[in-house]
């Protein structure tokens, strides 16, 4: 019997294996979009995942128990190794990379506890996971439960919402808080201003949400609602709302729709439609992505879309000129796709694949000549242990999934650049020192973050965010989107050679606690700026703030919320010391250059004008406006160092990357002043000598 079952398993594995190996094909819909140039991909038949039974945490069919779905039981068990999968980055977000040596080796600041979102500080949310071992409540910022309520909509459960920071599974006998401020078991109560215990019994835990990526109709919005409300145990159910398998109950929780189930208790395949991660699945969290769509939703689920917000990525096969909404300025002339790879029908997993997928794996080992291993791991083994640390490139300063940097297919893994750049002199030098995107991403036609100013809090209690490339609100489809030209920043490539890449510059302004060696927490900022919690959404400023910053009507609007005198900086510093207990605060500017990588154009739109870079007005050194509200005279941090990269002499402060470009000699742009001076002096000397000498000869001859 066992032998028979093993044989069936192998057959099953084979079927699923074939399906996964042909994943790029069956991840496509049956109707190729108008811009698709490869119809065969869309025409291929999608292979079917075997029937599955949705089980609760005890292993019982949820139809009978009515309890929340347990993916550990439903997807794990005999088929996939749940713990192996959940130990990867998408489920851990750095929790399993909390290694000081690893962080230091990648230049991460000392206050980051992990390279991932679960532990690192980022200027965009100005929040950070509280470190283990704190002894004072003032050291607590965002505890693990709060992190899950804020960030758990995207970050897919498993490690971060199943295990505490000591590695114990929540709701087991071993899982106990280590002290009164243990970040895994507490949360900051804003009303009381205290750190209070979190009730894990009430919230439950959120297991890895396999559905968010493997169910095409997954609903991140519904998942987010449950996570934000602290109903972690129902989060995975919520993801299935749009499939019709579950029905949200008004009181709490979900019931199951029997229509979506087969008589044997398994869920109908056409309801759950399990498949490899589709482009739409990835786009729910990573950015505006649409399969050949002419209407791009400004904001999906009314919250963050990281890839788009940071750099303006729109991975879409449709032509920009066909865009109906939003309002792209000058689209009439943009008769080309948002991204050529999207237009060719490529999806995210074509490049960001599972590294041990035997049909896709590449081997990056310069000491060996093998780029592809035909005799890779067995299909059945892969299906049981599919590596979910998906292949990734290198987008400095992003440190997430640090151990998998440069594992994805890069441009050169598919394109032979040497063969298609015959026109280009010094090909090797150009290809070594310039990322392909420099020419193939000459402009971004969407908006992106420009600045996030946490140095002065608005009456919303939060930061002032500005965007580049848009005139108006980002949620208004009528706002004119003109896009932006990237800034060019040298960054180490996979071989540690400095390579110039196009980036979007995001400037953060924040207060730094020099005594603690970390950014000042947002709640501390709020204590310094406001007298109480918000009333009807508006935070009441302290009188000192109003007196110093407000206009004659007592209003602090954007023009007033600036540090334009040292006295204003000194006042907030004093308020932070007095009301927030920050003994030595320092106002800082941090400029972060986010590499733009998607939105690639083909050769017709690529930059071919040599003088664009090789001239006095080289785009490589073009000043990029940062933020008109930047305070002057405060430290400017760039990649962890104090660098003079902001030029305040311009009308609006601009990024001055000349210091970063110093190691590159760009003919036509780079100059050695004394050489130029001496050279022209010699030429001018010869001219002047000839002129005077000739004139004197002429005069002498006449006389």
């Amino acid at each position, binding site marked *: 019997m066992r032998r028979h079952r093993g044989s069936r398993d192998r057959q099953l594995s084979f079927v699923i294996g074939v399906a996964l190996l042909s994943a790029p094909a069956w991840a496509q819909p049956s109707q190729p979009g108008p811009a698709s140039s490869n119809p065969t991909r869309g025409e291929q038949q999608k292979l079917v995942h075997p029937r599955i039974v949705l089980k609760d945490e005890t292993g019982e069919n949820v139809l009978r128990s009515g309890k929340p779905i347990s993916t550990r039981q439903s997807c794990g068990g005999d088929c996939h190794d749940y713990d192996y999968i959940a130990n990867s980055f998408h489920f851990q977000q750095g929790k399993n990379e909390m290694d000081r040596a690893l962080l230091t080796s990648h230049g991460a600041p000392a206050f980051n506890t992990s390279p991932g979102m679960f532990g690192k500080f980022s200027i965009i949310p100005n929040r950070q996971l509280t470190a283990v071992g704190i002894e004072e409540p003032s050291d607590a910022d965002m505890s693990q439960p709060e992190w899950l309520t804020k960030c758990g909509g995207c970050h897919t459960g498993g490690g971060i919402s199943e295990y505490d920071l000591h590695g114990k599974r929540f709701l087991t006998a071993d899982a106990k808080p280590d002290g009164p401020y243990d970040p895994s078991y507490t949360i900051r109560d804003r009303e009381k201003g205290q750190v209070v215990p979190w009730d894990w019994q009430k919230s439950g835990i959120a297991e890895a949400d396999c559905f968010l990526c493997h169910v095409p109709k997954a609903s991140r919005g519904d998942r987010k609602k449950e996570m934000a409300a602290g109903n972690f145990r129902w989060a995975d159910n919520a993801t299935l709302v749009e499939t019709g398998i579950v029905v949200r109950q008004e009181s709490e929780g979900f019931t199951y729709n029997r229509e979506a189930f087969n008589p044997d208790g398994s869920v109908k395949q056409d309801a759950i439609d399990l498949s490899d991660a589709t482009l739409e699945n990835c786009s729910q969290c990573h950015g505006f992505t649409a399969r050949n769509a002419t209407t791009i939703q400004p904001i999906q689920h009314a919250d963050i879309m990281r890839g788009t917000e940071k750099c303006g990525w729109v991975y879409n096969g449709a032509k920009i000129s066909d865009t109906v909404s939003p309002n792209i300025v000058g689209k009439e002339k943009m008769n080309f796709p948002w991204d050529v790879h999207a237009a060719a029908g490529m999806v995210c997993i074509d490049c960001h694949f599972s590294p041990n997928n035997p049909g896709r794996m590449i081997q990056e080992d310069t000491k060996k000549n093998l780029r592809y291993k035909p005799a890779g791991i067995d299909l059945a083994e892969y299906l049981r242990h599919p590596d979910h640390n998906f292949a990734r490139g290198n987008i400095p300063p992003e440190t997430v999934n640090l151990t998998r940097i440069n594992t994805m297919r890069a441009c050169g893994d598919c394109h032979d650049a040497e063969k298609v750049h015959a026109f*280009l002199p010094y090909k090797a030098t150009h290809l070594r020192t310039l990322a392909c995107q420099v020419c193939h991403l000459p402009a971004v036609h969407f908006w992106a973050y420009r600045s996030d100013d946490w140095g002065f809090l608005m009456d919303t209690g939060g930061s002032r965010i500005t965007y580049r490339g848009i005139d108006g609100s980002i949620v208004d489809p009528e706002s004119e989107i003109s896009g932006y030209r990237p800034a060019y920043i040298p960054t180490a490539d996979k071989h540690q050679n400095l390579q110039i890449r196009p980036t979007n510059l995001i400037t953060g302004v924040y207060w730094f606690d020099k005594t603690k060696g970390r950014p000042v927490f947002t709640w501390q900022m709020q204590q310094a700026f406001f007298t109480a919690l918000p009333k009807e959404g508006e935070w009441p400023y302290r009188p000192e703030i109003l007196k110093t910053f407000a206009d004659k009507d007592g209003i602090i609007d954007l023009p007033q919320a600036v540090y334009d005198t040292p006295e204003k900086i000194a006042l907030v510093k004093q308020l932070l010391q007095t009301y927030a207990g920050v003994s030595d605060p320092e106002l800082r500017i941090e400029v972060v250059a986010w590499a733009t990588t998607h939105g690639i154009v083909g050769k017709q739109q690529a930059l071919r004008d040599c*003088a664009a870079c090789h001239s*006095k007005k080289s785009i490589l050194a073009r000043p990029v406006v940062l933020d008109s509200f930047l305070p002057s005279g405060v430290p400017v941090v760039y990649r962890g160092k104090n660098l003079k990269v902001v030029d305040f002499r311009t009308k609006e402060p601009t990024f001055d990357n000349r210091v970063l470009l110093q190691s590159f000699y760009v*003919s036509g742009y780079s100059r050695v002043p004394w050489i130029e001076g001496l*050279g022209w002096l010699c030429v001018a000397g*010869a001219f002047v000598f000839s002129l005077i000498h000739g004139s004197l000869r002429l005069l002498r001859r006449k006389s």
Partner: protein
Amino acid sequence: MTSTPVLYSLHERIWHWLQAAGIGFLILTGFAIHYPDRFGVLGSMANAVRWHTWIGVALVVNAFLGIFYHATAEKYHHFLPRMDDFTDAAIRQAHFYFYGIFQGEKHPLETDPRRKLNSLQKITYLLLLNVLLPFQIVTGVLLWGADLWPILIARLGGLWVLAPLHTLGSYLFLAFLVGHLYLATTGPTLGSLLRAMITGYHTQEEP
């Protein structure tokens, strides 16, 4: 004024004008590379780089042919200064250029097929052909090979050293060219020296 027999042989004239054209085009294409936004004479910087490379190769070949010709025709001595050329003769020549020429004095050197260059010309060409030209060839070849020999280039200081040095050499060539063109007008008539380099015949001053 009388004309003498051939002062510059056909070989010499062809060599000279090829050299002149080569240097002129190199300066022109060099400007198109150094100031691509202001001297887009060849369509694009990429074209300028290609032309600059090929003209440079042609100039090097011409230079070696020149060495071969002057060595085999035993005419290299025209370019070899004697000790006197660095002292008395040089002073006499300088005195002529800075004073005598305005007084209508006779040129201190009577040019003939055996003595074509005055002492200042000899010194100038000694530096030009033996220092500046090789310097430009070496730095130019290294710049051309930046793609092929990146490690060597890095050891030599990289492009930040080689390119500016090559640029400086170019400026010096341009300065020489300006002076050379002007001094070509200091013969018995404004165009006599130029005519000599075209026809081969030199017009001598009346005694």
